[in-house]
């Protein structure tokens, strides 16, 4: 009887309903309790300041903040690879990892354990020192760049005035590290991959910097918090106001972090794995983890620079702001996964041509346009809705230009009906073969 009741569908529905209610209540209280995490770091700082010296308090609070960021990144690396594999599996009509733990959630852990058990092979002719440093060193820029990210009000670890430049400078440190990884392997594939990386990153840093420059121009600051506040004060998302900068930043960043369709640095069908071909075991795993972390970092950067950070139409007063921020980040990350599951890869020369002949000139022109608009806005600040007007103009311009670009350059050239195969009957059947001349 009791057994029958427990197997009843009504019971299951009831228990699910109760669980949801309890979860909602608990979530409400927890969110009230954890609304502003900066309270805790302030508490720790004051605790140490009262009992010990300022130095110790400074050290303790900074270490705790760093641990917070590192633990978040670690969590991202653990769950992110599961999310990526699972979502891509859905795209590919598969199930994905589903064996280890509930829904396969422990699969990344199992992978890590497996990778750690594997032998680390060092090629005999490799430069041993330079071979062993990069897998560890590549974590430094990946972690350091998380510093000035604004998680919420009062919740950025490095609230510095040069935030954008800092992220840009720190992430440019990955270039030599990747180069040393490829060079020291003494493998031609690795060398090809690292030279590709260096060439790509150097080229695509320019559009990235130009798009970030237009962000700085509009907001008048390089501080992440102030950029987020500017967007909420003017009640406009920068991604809407300067959509071309958003596109440039997104596309060029996918080239910088080696995501499809720009993952030519480690194109597995061409140069097998690129710069980390000779790394085995956990060392290769570290490179892959950093790639994943960089993808999430890109999501965080875009959501704070272009998508108004932790603000979301007043919802930030109800749920903790960092939850909103993480949601936006995850959204961008899912977009990256979508791209990865869908697109083939560009060729190196195509990407280079696109960077130098299209993206950089367009970015420079866009920068001038933004400068003119900003000066108009600052000179006629008494007119309301000027920003909205320019937003509409910018969006329509970008759409129009994209349409024209596609119209002029590609659709004409490759009209589907022109490049489709013909049927032999329409060109004269097998007799048509005789027309093919000059057979030796």
């Amino acid at each position, binding site marked *: 009887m009791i057994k029958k009741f427990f197997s009843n569908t009504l019971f299951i529905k009831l228990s699910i309903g109760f669980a949801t209610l309890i979860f909602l209540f608990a979530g409400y209280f927890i969110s009230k309790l954890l609304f502003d995490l900066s309270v805790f770091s302030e508490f720790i700082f004051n605790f140490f300041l009262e009992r010990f010296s300022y*130095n110790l308090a400074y050290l303790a609070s900074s270490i705790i903040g760093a641990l917070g960021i590192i633990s978040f990144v670690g969590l991202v690396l653990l769950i992110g690879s599961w999310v990526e594999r699972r979502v891509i599996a859905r795209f590919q009509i598969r199930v994905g990892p589903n064996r280890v733990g509930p829904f396969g959630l422990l699969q990344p852990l199992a992978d890590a354990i497996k990778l750690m058990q594997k032998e680390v092979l060092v090629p005999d002719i490799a*430069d041993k020192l330079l071979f062993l440093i990069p897998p560890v060193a590549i974590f430094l820029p990946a972690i350091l760049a998380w510093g000035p990210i604004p998680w919420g009000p009062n919740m950025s670890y490095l609230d510095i*005035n*040069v935030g954008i430049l800092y992220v840009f400078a720190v992430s*440019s440190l990955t*270039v030599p590290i990747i180069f040393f990884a490829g*060079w020291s392997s003494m493998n031609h594939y690795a060398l090809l991959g690292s030279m590709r990386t*260096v060439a790509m990153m150097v080229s695509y840093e320019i559009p990235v910097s130009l798009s970030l420059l237009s962000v700085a121009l509009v907001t008048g600051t390089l501080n992440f918090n102030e950029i987020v506040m500017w967007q909420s004060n003017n009640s406009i998302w920068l991604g809407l106001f300067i959509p071309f900068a958003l596109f440039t930043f997104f596309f060029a960043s996918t080239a910088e972090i080696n995501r499809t369709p720009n993952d030519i640095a480690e194109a597995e069908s061409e140069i097998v794995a690129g710069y980390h071909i000779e790394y085995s075991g956990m060392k290769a795993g570290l490179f892959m983890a950093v790639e994943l972390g960089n993808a999430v970092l890109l999501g965080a950067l875009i959501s704070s620079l272009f998508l108004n950070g932790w603000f979301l139409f007043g919802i930030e007063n109800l749920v903790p702001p960092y939850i909103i921020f993480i949601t936006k980040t995850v959204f961008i990350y899912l977009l990256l996964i979508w791209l990865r599951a869908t697109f083939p890869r560009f060729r190196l020369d195509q990407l280079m041509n696109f960077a130098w002949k299209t993206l950089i000139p367009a970015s420079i022109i866009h920068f001038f346009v933004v400068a003119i608009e900003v000066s108009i806005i600052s000179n006629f600040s008494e007119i309301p809705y000027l920003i909205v007007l320019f937003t509409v103009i910018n969006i329509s311009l970008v759409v129009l230009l994209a349409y024209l670009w596609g119209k002029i350059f590609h659709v004409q050239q490759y009209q589907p009906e022109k490049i489709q195969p013909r049927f032999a009957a329409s060109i004269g059947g097998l007799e048509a073969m005789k027309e093919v001349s000059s057979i030796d």
Partner: protein
Amino acid sequence: MIEVNIYNAAFLLFSMITLLSAIGVAVINSLMRSLFLLIISFIGVASLFVLLSADFIAIAQLLIYAGSISILLLFAVMLTPEVSINNQNSKYFLFAALTGILFTYIMFLFISIFDINQLTGLSLDKLNFSNTIDKIGTLLLGKYIIAFELASILLLFALIGAISIVRSNESDFNIVATKIKGKK
């Protein structure tokens, strides 16, 4: 006696990183390894700039030295293969070492006779500014505008010059080489 605090510890750490990796650049025979150490030395100098409350300059140092000039050096090494991998001393290295030691000694003398009491940095603290970027921008586009424009022209010429030097074919080079020889 130097007080033990975070600032001093950081100074010691960063200056040690800078100097030791610079010494490594001088000592190590493999050019790639010394290049790696050179990048670390650049990063150390950038960290020292942070300690000197020059945030913008620190980031610029990181961007230009560690991010760009090191890449240029890497490209140069890759474009001059095999023969360029070693980083050995020339026959003048004893002379060079003597020069370095002499220079350091002279600088010690200068520093020791320097009246340091004027330069405490406390007056700068009184000026009380939190953001150097807009001040630097005002200076660059105000007082030093001509130098700024000249620097941009210099960069442009360097860019064009570097490209034209590398792209020039052998006959052009011969002309340049004969001119240099003629000057000798």
